[in-house]
């Protein structure tokens, strides 16, 4: 009797702990094929437009670039050029539409894509003005508690006439290596106890392990000192390297796209999903822009 009861309990426990996992069969969704446009305009780079299409649930996600579309680039409403398609990777047949032209700050750019099998899609974005940096300097290289902790100051003259958005990146140049999440660049009111992580003046910030994205809500129109605090043990090494600090002015489309993209990437199962920002009319993707102020600092 005792052994039967024991067996019964063990089997019952095993049944309880057996999670049953199955594929959920849902009715096929009626998905219309649409074009996907991806483009990041940069005042320092040629214009490149990636063109792909959407995929239904269950469809293989092979890169499906579309080479036979008519892609028109507009500047301040005037057709600049029809962009030719260029194969970038012959192995997988992937390419993009490009022209040898660097966009100009404070001008409005548009793209229009025409293809016989898809709805015509379009998008516009205003290339922002290069941030006005009036001063930048080292504040501290290491402190008593942590010799790898560094602090660099940038003074930004914020244009109060409009809503602005910014992104900061800090890199070492010369190696394929970014500062890790622990050694991230953050805006902080420097505090040896690390009680404050992000300055409260900034709102709706987005922080990934390689960049910091923020709007000017809270600092709008003021001359603001951005205190960049980051961990970088290499700065104390004997190697000769270059530290790169980039402060980009980015468009709202850029800010919204990467803000939602970062939230999307952090989404876990069974959490209300994030809808990634989309500014493509009749299609999907992102057409956004940035304009950078770059600082290169030799370090030993």
């Amino acid at each position, binding site marked *: 009797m005792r052994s039967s009861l024991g067996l*019964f*309990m063990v089997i*019952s*426990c095993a*049944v*309880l*702990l*057996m*999670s049953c*996992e*199955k*594929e*959920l069969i849902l009715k096929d*969704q009626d998905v219309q094929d649409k074009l*996907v446009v991806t483009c*990041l305009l940069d005042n320092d*780079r040629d214009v490149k437009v*990636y063109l792909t299409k*959407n*995929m*239904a*649930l*269950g*469809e*293989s*996600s092979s*890169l499906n670039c579309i080479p036979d579309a008519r892609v028109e680039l507009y500047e301040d409403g005037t057709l600049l050029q029809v962009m030719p398609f260029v194969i*970038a*990777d012959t192995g997988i047949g*992937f390419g993009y539409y490009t022209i040898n032209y660097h966009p100009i700050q404070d001008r409005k750019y548009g793209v229009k894509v025409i293809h016989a099998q898809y709805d015509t899609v379009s998008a516009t974005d205003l290339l922002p003005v290069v941030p006005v940096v009036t001063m930048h300097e080292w504040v501290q290289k290491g402190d008593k508690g*942590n010799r*790898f902790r560094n602090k660099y100051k940038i003074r930004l003259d914020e244009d109060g006439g409009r809503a602005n958005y910014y*992104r900061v*990146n800090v*890199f070492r*140049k010369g190696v*394929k290596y*970014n500062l890790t999440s*622990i*050694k991230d660049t953050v805006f902080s009111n420097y505090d040896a106890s*690390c009680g404050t*992580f992000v300055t409260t003046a900034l709102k709706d910030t987005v922080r*990934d392990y*390689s*960049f910091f994205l923020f709007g000017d809500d809270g600092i709008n129109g003021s001359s603001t000192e951005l205190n960049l605090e980051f*961990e970088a043990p290499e700065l104390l090494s004997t190697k000769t390297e270059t530290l*790169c600090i980039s402060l980009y002015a980015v468009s709202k489309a850029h800010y919204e796209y*990467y803000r939602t*993209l*970062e*939230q*999307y990437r952090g989404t876990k*199962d*069974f*959490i209300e*999903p994030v809808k*990634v920002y989309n500014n493509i009319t009749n299609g*999907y*993707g*992102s057409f956004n822009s940035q304009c950078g102020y770059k600082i290169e600092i030799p370090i030993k």
Partner: protein
Amino acid sequence: MRLLRILFLLALVNPAMLYAQQSFTLSGKVYTGDSIVARGAGITVDEAADVYTDSAGNFRLQLPGGKHDVRFALKGYNSQAIQLVLTKDTMIDIQLSDGSIAIHTVEIFYLKPPSEHREDGNIQLSSASIKKLPQFFGENDPMRAVQMQGGVQSGGEGSRGIFIRGGSPDQNLVLLDGAPVYNAAHIYGFISVFNGDAINKLTIYKDKYPSRFGGRLCSVLDIATNSGNKEKIKGSVSIGLATARFNVNGPIGGGKLTTFDLSARVCFAGLFSASITKMQFRKSGYDGALKYYFGDVNAKVAHRISAITTIEATFFTSNDYYSFNREARQEETGFRQKTFSAQNIYWANYTGSIALMHTINGRWGMKHHVSYSNYHINNMDWQEIQQYYNQSAEPQYYSDNESKRSSYINDISYTADFTCNIRKQKISVGGGVTGILFEAGRGTFKLDNNSSGELNYRLTGDKVNSIAAFVYAEEEYRPSRPWVLTAGLHGRTYTVQGKTFLSLLPRAHVQFNPIGGLYLRAGAAGLSQNLHMLAVNSTTIINDYWVPATAKAKPETGWNMNGGIMQKLPLGFEWSMDGFYRIMSNVIEYKEGTAGVAVFKPWESQIETGGKGRSYGAEFYMGRTTGKLTGSAAYTLAWSNRQFPGLNSGAVYPYKYDRRHNIATQLNYIINKHFELGATWVYGSGTRFTLPVQSYHSFGTLNDIDDDLLNGRPVSIPNDLIILFSKRNEARLPAYHHLDVSFTYRKQVKNLMHQFNLSIYNVYNNFNVFMVYSDTKGHADGSVTLSLKKISLFPVLPSVSYTINFM
């Protein structure tokens, strides 16, 4: 008018009405032996509970004229049986005393069946009806009994809390002997924190809201625990598949002035789960174990100070501990990695209350109540990685990350209630004050590795103090026999962060008894809520955070309107039909993609505020409450929507628990004095969710782009797979349903009652969806395919329990 005629016709075809030429009111007051009013005494017809006396000892029954047997009972006292022949409205006072049984004889006719469904639309569940349900893990769970009622639904497989008429779980005020309980569920919500042995009765207020209640938008679950019997020490011991419990109650001292009731329960699933999961994990190539324990204690002491004054003290605690640890090893040529990870979560409720009841002139009842409630969660996550190269003994790289987070809510309340019965009127007035201290998101983080050294971060949670004060007045008036009119006003102030919110919340209810057992009812109530609960339905064991209403996340307000009809038929049958409409303002929701109260950010920055909600629907109920075969069937047809400026492009969307159809049925059959069978079947439309429908490629993070730029390479090709979703909560998961059965055998040997119970959960092995997730499957060409997968928790699940009652 036409509807009224139809209702009258319905009543006329009722066979009972053929006998009942006229109905009369039987009312009065029940006292104990020392002339103390008997609060909560049961008044029964045909040996089943019908109504209970109120806090002033009063009762009121509507009975057609004729012969009738009525029995009055109160735990700790001898019951009184009365034979009546009703020929007119009758008022009697009953005195429950030791040993004597008074028999009164009058003429008689109609037997009014007992019911848990009150004429005013509220529901009162007795301990006996809770224990009729099939057990789950050997437990009689009061919350499962609640979920069997019309208009009440569970969230689905393993969901915490109950959802009443389209509201969320935090919109239900759960009171245990008057003290609020902030977390009513043990792990995943499978078992509630309320031990069936300790519960005397449970009242669900979802139709007629007494003005003395406030602070929540949807309903009140008022749970009264046992005070203990007055005669001798009694008790029970029970052991089930994963839990064990005991109850002991009786008098303290010889004067029969003081009684106590003590119940405790422990879950020992961790003893099995540790070894079983260890075996399962080993098959997957790593070491680890999962442990889970919980325990709860209910204690109550009641003392009669004088003939008219009684004091009660209650203590309750529930504690849960979850632990998961894992050690994984990875070995390749010239490389080894060890990963250790652990998660420990501890959460607990503590409540305590003292109530002083006093009667003045036999008409005024007075109650002073002080309570304390605490709920807190502590969560610890830890991960250590060690990497070894080329057979080295010491790790070349290590990282050691640990995070600890905690959150708590402290609630201290004082209330005073006064009730008075004057002929056709019952007047209630009172007030109270509540102080609540919140702290969400306190924590520490340790980040350590061999390149950066140790970093320690402290996070101070947002401590918020708030004070709420309220006064109320209510009158129940019976102008003539069929009418009961109730009107009241609940005024409430709420002060937080230097800002005060004022609410004036009217309540009204009308009850009409045109003929026999037919009742019509309608009501409206204004409600407000001064706190919010942030909860995510994820695989996390528990992630509920209570936060205060603030200037940004304003107090929730709402209106409830309802109307219905019920009829009590002969042989214990009854049916009812109710409609409801509810609007809510200032509800909150997490922002899209928020996985819980994230660190580094104030909780207010992680929520959408200013939400509106609306729910409406109809409930149908029929049941039989007396006889060998009893049972009920409840069907709810409902809609529930939400709207936020920052969600779903500002458009209205279905609430996650917008459950169109909900059915709950139960049957109980007493074969003989030894054997009893029970069965329940529940069905609910699937939970709403946002469906992934398509995807596209896009740029990766800017990390890739900048990295390429800095190294002079062309910008990366689009390499992120972005999933596009349907409109918010546009899709439904498969319907949720399961059949449970139970078999109980009882045998009394001298003073011991042995009880063996076999219950089977989910008899036909339906794989109800616990959670869904999107899964990607890689292909040789580097592409991936996206699919949706579901996880079910419980297949067919038998459980046994053995109980000995010491009589």
